[in-house]
């Protein structure tokens, strides 16, 4: 994603928070005016006390006004902070909502390809990364123009020399900053890269410490760590020495403006100069006033500089966020379509189904034909890469149908409403996700119609109660963060219980017995027998031993079904299945 696109996307969010940003800018401008008034009052008091020898009592009203102005400034600062936060809140709420919705709409296939961790970090950290830009940078940008301009014009009205000093030096700041900043931004990125690489190297060393130790290299590694740190330090410092020039320039210009103002005014008092004041006499009050304004002139620019990294952060975040949001949605996300007519179970008819992925060399499915009768238990076996998973994803409508036809009870699957179709089926994935909540919550998946009794029945049927009894609160035990409390086999049994609890006519199981120890495998196989009753069940597996329990077995190879029949039939046919079965009881690949 080129930076300009990220910027465009960021700018498209501006209108969402414009009122708050505008309010922040107004408050900041008023605050700027207060600073000018405060400078005027201070200058007046000092002038009166110093030159006119006015007694303190006579100055009380001015002191009081000073306090009021100060109070107003403090209040404005406070409210500004809140307004900036509001702007950021609005934006982050919208962006997170959009992102979450879009990610869900992109569907399981997209998530599998991009992986959970980067998606989560985009949704959490990257969205947070927008904060500084909207809360601080965006309001400060106009203020960095308005306030210096206000101060500069005020000075210009009093003395054209001081006014010119201000109005010439102030724009030099952004000018130089841009000049240096162009390079500095790149340098900063490089610096950041260097630093993170240094951290990564250290992490890598720690991760490999056991290995290093086993090879007796661990003490030697200290030297390597020292030299690499040293190398990184040198690299980083070369970068920083240039990057810091921009802050030096800001400092330089501030000092120059102040010093020139002071010297010009001082020499004017001493009658060395007699110009630049529109022929008005120069009082101490005017002089001090102008002097006090000089540092304030640069303050908004300095703040903008401080928030500049927020812009960079937001641009980085925008690139990632918008690249997800610009991801086109798959066509299967349709809420239209008819509902499925179910009288007597679900039968499926797959004809000439082919499917290819853009990155695959050969089609994942190639002219697949398969009929699944209502109420039967069909096992689909085949090596990994045979197309089992693609077939499952087509049935679940995670993937759009590219070629051929799939009919459910005579109705084309593509004509059905996705949500309605999914209501008829239950799915037990190989690695089911357990959600935050109790075991029972994970069985019901939030279905309020399930009675306690039904939950218990499902738990018993799926052999969940077998381990739930050992848990502190049985089915009411929380499964822990990401289901940590339960093992892989136990999690799969919970997912089986989900399938039991759902009154579905079709169950799709993905490798229900893969990588389980003997005990879990036995329990799950027992549960499957139970689940198959009164349902159409499609089971993907590469374990022939598990497949044997099914009514029929379909053998897949190279994207199509090559053999179908019962275990006995297939053995008698002495085809691929028989070959696999006799060569190894372990696996079919």
């Amino acid at each position, binding site marked *: 994603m080129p930076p300009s696109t990220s910027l465009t996307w960021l700018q498209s969010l501006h209108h969402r928070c414009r009122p708050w940003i505008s309010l922040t800018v107004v408050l900041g401008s008023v605050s700027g005016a207060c600073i000018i008034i405060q400078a005027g009052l*201070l200058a007046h008091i*000092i002038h009166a*006390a*110093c030159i006119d020898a006015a*007694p*303190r009592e006579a100055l009380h009203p001015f002191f009081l006004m000073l306090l009021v102005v*100060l*109070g107003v*400034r403090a209040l404005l600062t406070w409210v*500004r*902070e*809140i307004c900036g*936060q509001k702007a950021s809140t609005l934006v982050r709420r919208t962006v997170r909502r959009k992102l979450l919705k879009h990610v869900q709409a992109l569907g399981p296939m997209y*998530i599998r390809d991009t992986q959970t961790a980067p998606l989560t970090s985009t949704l*959490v950290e990257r969205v947070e990364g927008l904060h500084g830009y909207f809360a601080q940078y965006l309001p400060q940008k106009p203020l960095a123009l308005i306030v210096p301009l206000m101060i500069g014009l005020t000075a210009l009205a009093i003395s054209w020399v001081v006014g010119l000093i201000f109005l010439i030096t102030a724009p030099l700041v952004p000018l130089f900053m841009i000049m240096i900043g162009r390079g500095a931004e790149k340098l900063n990125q490089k610096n950041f890269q260097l630093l993170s690489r*240094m951290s990564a190297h250290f*992490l*890598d060393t*720690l*991760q490999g*410490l*056991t*290995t*290093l130790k*086993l*090879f*007796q290299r661990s003490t030697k590694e200290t030297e390597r760590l020292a030299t690499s*740190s040293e190398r990184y*330090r040198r690299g980083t*410092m070369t970068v*920083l020495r240039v990057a810091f*020039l921009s*802050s*030096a320039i800001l*400092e*330089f210009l501030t*000092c120059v403006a*102040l*010093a020139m103002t002071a010297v010009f005014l*001082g*020499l004017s*008092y*001493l009658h060395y100069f007699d110009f630049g004041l529109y022929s008005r006499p120069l009082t101490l009050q005017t002089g001090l006033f102008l*002097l*006090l304004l000089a540092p304030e002139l640069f303050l908004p620019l300095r703040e903008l500089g401080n928030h500049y990294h927020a812009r960079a952060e937001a641009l980085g975040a925008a690139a990632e966020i918008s690249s997800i949001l610009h991801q086109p949605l798959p066509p299967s996300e349709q809420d239209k379509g008819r509902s499925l007519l179910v009288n007597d179970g679900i039968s499926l008819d797959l004809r000439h189904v082919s499917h290819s992925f853009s990155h695959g060399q050969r089609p994942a499915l190639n002219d697949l034909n398969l009929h699944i009768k209502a109420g039967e238990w069909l096992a689909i076996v085949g090596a990994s890469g045979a197309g089992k998973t693609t077939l499952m994803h087509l049935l679940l409508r*995670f993937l759009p149908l590219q070629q051929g036809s799939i009919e459910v009870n005579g109705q084309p699957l593509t004509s059905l409403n996705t949500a309605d179709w999914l*209501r008829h089926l239950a*799915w037990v*994935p190989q690695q089911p996700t*357990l959600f*935050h909540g109790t075991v029972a919550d994970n069985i019901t*998946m939030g279905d309020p119609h399930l009675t306690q009794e039904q939950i218990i029945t499902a738990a018993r049927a799926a052999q969940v109660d077998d381990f739930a009894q050992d848990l502190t609160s049985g089915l009411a035990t929380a499964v822990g*963060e990401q289901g940590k409390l339960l093992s892989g086999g136990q999690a799969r049994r919970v997912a089986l219980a989900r399938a039991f609890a759902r009154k579905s006519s079709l169950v799709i199981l993905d490798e229900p017995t893969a990588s389980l*120890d*003997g*005990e879990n*495998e036995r329990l799950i196989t027992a549960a499957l027998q139970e689940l198959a009753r009164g349902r159409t069940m499609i089971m993907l597996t590469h374990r022939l031993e598990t497949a044997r329990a099914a009514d029929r077995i379909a053998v897949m190879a190279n994207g199509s079904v090559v053999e179908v029949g019962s275990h006995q039939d297939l053995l008698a046919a002495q085809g691929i299945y028989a070959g696999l079965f006799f060569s*190894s*009881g*372990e696996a079919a690949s």
Partner: protein
Amino acid sequence: MKSLWPFIKLLWPHRGWVMLAMFFTLLTLLANIGLLALSGWFLSASAVAGLSVASAYMFDIFTPSAGIRAFAIARTAGRYAERVIAHETTLRLLSSLRIWFYTRIEPQAPASLYRYRSGDLLGRIVTDIDTLDTLFVRVLSPTIAACSVAAISGFLLWLLAPALAAVFLIFFAGAGLLIPLLAQRLARRIGARIQQQMATIRMNLIEDIQGTADLIVYGVHHRHRQFRLQENDRLLSLQEEMARINGFCTAMMTLFSGCAAIAALYLAIPMAQAGRFDGAMLALITFGILAAFEAVLPLPPAYQMLGKIHAAAHRILEVTRAPATVSFETTPAAMPADFDIMYHAITFTYPETTGGTALHQVTFRLAPHAMVALVGPSGCGKTTLAHLLTRFWDPDQGRITIGGTDLRRFTEAQLRQMVTLVSQKSHIFNATLRDNLLIADPGADEKALWAALVRAQLADFVAGLPEGLDTWNGEGGARLSGGEARRLILARALLKNAPVWLLDEPTEGLDNLNRRRFMETLFANRQGKSMLLITHDVAALQRMDQIYFMERGRIICHGRHRDLLDTCERYRHFIGTRQPT
């Protein structure tokens, strides 16, 4: 503060840089005060002098204007030097911190890191160290600078009038101490809640994204999204509350610095008029005080940082202060004639665990040149049993001997020479393939490296890479597939050529084809080695000289695969359907 002391001590070797950085920080602050105060005084004094022509000509303009110029230059140069040197110091400190941590952790590894098995937690240690390295720039330096500014400005004001110094110091302390502490107090609870809410959101989002398929099939993805958005709203409102507190504190800082200048001016006017000091001093005092408050600005974030640093220091010290689990002999024992390995009634419990005993009275033998397998359900103690031979831990009871010599009598070098461990957790470094191999034998030449690759059946793959052995693994380099990674680990072990091999589920996570290939390679290389293999692979089990079946930290039975199927019911049960027909 006590937990920070070890880290403050790390600054000592860099004291030159530290002093220099402090000097420039202070110089920058003082130059700014000087610049404003002197300019104010110069204007006032010259205005007074300018009232009459005579005094105007008497007025020395060169000293003050030279002063102004000097302060301006000092400020500019000081700022630049401060930033460069502060970062230099920080980076040097970071390097020291890492080496310090590494040298602390190295003797007790891997036992102490065992709790940090997951990459996340190790990552947190690295982040913690990065956090700690800001201790100087973000916390110590601003604090010392603020105190110095307070002391110097306070002293100068005290010379003029003690009352002025008192007013200045009161407001200065208020802004530098009171407000940050107040802010911290107000923000602590809300900050903790924000962190918690953030963690909740992250955790639930991970589940939801991971389980999108499950959610869609069960038709609850819309509802789950609503839950996450509600949690998000809660986070946002907490953050707004935090912003109100932060805004309040910023406002108070503005108020305090303004009040300090106003109050000092208020006190100074009668003093000046009474002739205690020159009238031009009024501007000097006011402007100087206004400028001095610059030193206070970094303090509130510094205190916030201090909290984080404290927590990080705590976690780091917890790791480094763990006692070393084992110590090695320094004088080598006689090398054993054969590598007959015996475990005599070993009992072992992991330190700091709530779990029970990991091994109960385990007696076990790995005969020379034998291939022995350990089998059992996960958590039965297989890995522990293997790890005891590497002395990651020592058994609580019983002893392990190699060729009759107690394991503890060998030096670390001797032990590492004898035993090599290959596991799915063996680390492949983000370095070139060559570097990864050279870890096993730094002196190995090109021929030896390729020979090992050939034996590990990885030579064709490496030869096919454009950069061959110099291909970088990891970021920006070749990503090794699971099978290739295991082969590289195998090649490394072959290069080391130890007589005793421990293989902890070396094929876990590989597909069948790669698993079979790996095992074939392994069997082809078994010549003259004792191998202890932890595996579930039935095909491999059939070829073992001896199998030990374990459950709950005990050895249930042992023998050859065929015999165990007949004699050991638990084994048969465990192997279950894995048994070939």
